[in-house]
């Protein structure tokens, strides 16, 4: 469908928020705590954070929670009864204040969760989620969306994208999908007709730093490079990068057993951990950190484009910001591009 462009007055945003709440939608929006912005269910408009470049974590948690319970079981004597996932529990959810580099990630996740097996739980959550994103008017040294095919005003993945027109200005609302239109229908008086607006001049300037296609090609012959060891020497082996990433989707299936009852759930995993994909035999296919780091980069820039035709990086820069050892993915990608094989 064609993108519809509307104008939303700056003080109409709160009204829109209230209407969403009145329509019994759960609204997740960025909230500040301990100086970090993160997505939380929000009850009132005033608690939504305003001044942030990027949330610490991506909003993927709303659709791909860090713990997703698949089933409960109960053993009765020698019999076992199972209660599967309750799809009724997935309610209409609005994601408010997402950045374009996050929304684009939902497409990536969608590819991962549907490339062969269709993950119904993921799909149920995604289909019930309405994404109201806000384009970026600020960026920092960590941002590189433009190098990986995105841009600060990209509408990809959004249902409605809002762009703030000037420091104290009103908002341009680009209604991208039917879900977006449904929202407009709920509060049509707030979405005014508008003349053509040059939104680009209100967006942050994020220069292109590398060519991801070049990197992909380079990586085909880069598996044995000493760069992996050099880059990862300071990596401490935590999972922060994967957990803040909008596209990392590795998980582990765990049982939580309590005698006769218990449940099975999906928990986030990270290739940063030394125990990542350790075999029961004790064999560890990636026994040192450099191999795990290589897996991370190769997965995002080589394996995924090859298999899913999408890149596993949106250029949000979260992993670099979160890294306790200051591993900067942008720097490392540039140096990969520069190294001669």
């Amino acid at each position, binding site marked *: 469908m064609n993108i519809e462009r509307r104008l939303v007055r700056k003080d109409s945003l709160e009204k829109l928020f209230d209407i969403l709440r009145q329509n019994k939608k759960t609204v997740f929006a960025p909230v500040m705590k301990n100086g970090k912005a993160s997505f939380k269910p929000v009850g009132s408009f005033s608690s939504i954070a305003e001044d942030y470049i990027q949330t610490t974590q991506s909003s993927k948690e709303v659709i791909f929670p860090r713990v997703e319970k698949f089933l*409960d079981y*109960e053993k009765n004597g020698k019999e076992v*009864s199972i*209660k599967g996932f309750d799809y009724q529990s997935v309610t209409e959810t609005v994601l408010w204040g997402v950045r374009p580099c996050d929304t684009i990630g939902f497409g990536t996740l969608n590819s991962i969760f549907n490339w062969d097996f269709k993950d119904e739980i993921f799909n149920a959550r995604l289909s019930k989620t309405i994404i109201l994103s806000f384009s970026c008017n600020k960026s920092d040294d960590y941002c590189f969306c433009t190098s990986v095919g995105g841009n600060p005003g990209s509408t990809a993945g959004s249902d409605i994208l809002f762009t703030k027109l000037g420091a104290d200005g009103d908002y341009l609302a680009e209604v991208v999908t039917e879900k977006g239109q449904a929202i407009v229908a709920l509060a049509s008086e707030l979405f005014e007709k508008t003349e053509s607006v040059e939104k680009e001049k209100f967006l942050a300037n994020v220069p292109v730093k590398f060519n991801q296609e070049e990197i992909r090609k380079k990586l085909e012959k880069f598996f044995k490079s000493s760069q992996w060891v050099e880059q990862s020497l300071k990596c401490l082996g935590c999972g922060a990068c994967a957990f803040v990433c909008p596209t990392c989707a590795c998980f582990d299936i765990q049982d*939580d057993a*309590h*005698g006769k*009852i*218990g*449940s099975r759930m999906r928990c986030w995993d990270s290739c940063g951990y030394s125990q990542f994909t350790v075999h029961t035999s004790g064999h560890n296919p990636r026994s040192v950190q450099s191999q795990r780091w290589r897996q991370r980069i190769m997965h995002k820039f080589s394996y995924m484009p090859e298999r899913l035709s999408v890149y596993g990086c949106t250029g949000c820069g979260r992993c670099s910001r979160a890294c306790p050892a200051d591993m900067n993915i942008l720097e490392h990608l540039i140096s990969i591009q520069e190294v001669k094989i």
Partner: protein
Amino acid sequence: MAEFEPKIVAFVCNWCTYAGADLTGTSRIKYASNVRIVRFPCTGRIDYMLLLKAFDEGADGIIVSGCHPNDCHYTSGNFHARRRWMAFRSLCDFIGIDTRRIKFSWVSAAEGAKWADIVNTTVASVRELGPYDEYKKVAKKPVKEESHG
């Protein structure tokens, strides 16, 4: 409404308190039936994580008991345990776990009556504190389909 019957788990060493509780039995001293004993070779073996596990699984109170100082069958397990408990208790208190629900005691193999007394007083005091809902709310065990009796 029926009186609240707290679930009490007791972690005891084999040589003193377990034997002491045996003596309580041999002496036919009656005590509250709310307590369930788990036997360890020594208090030194008792992992503090097990105490948290007991709360996770719905215990309302915990008793930890072993040989009096200098009486340890293994000479010093209880001394080690004592230090560990001290630290454990501080941390529990700091994190806000209700330390009134954890009773530490020394009960020797000759103190059958003391064992009965420890159980009874613990049951009474935990009964007064009520179910440990604060912890249970956080532990959120999967809910059982139908409940027995």
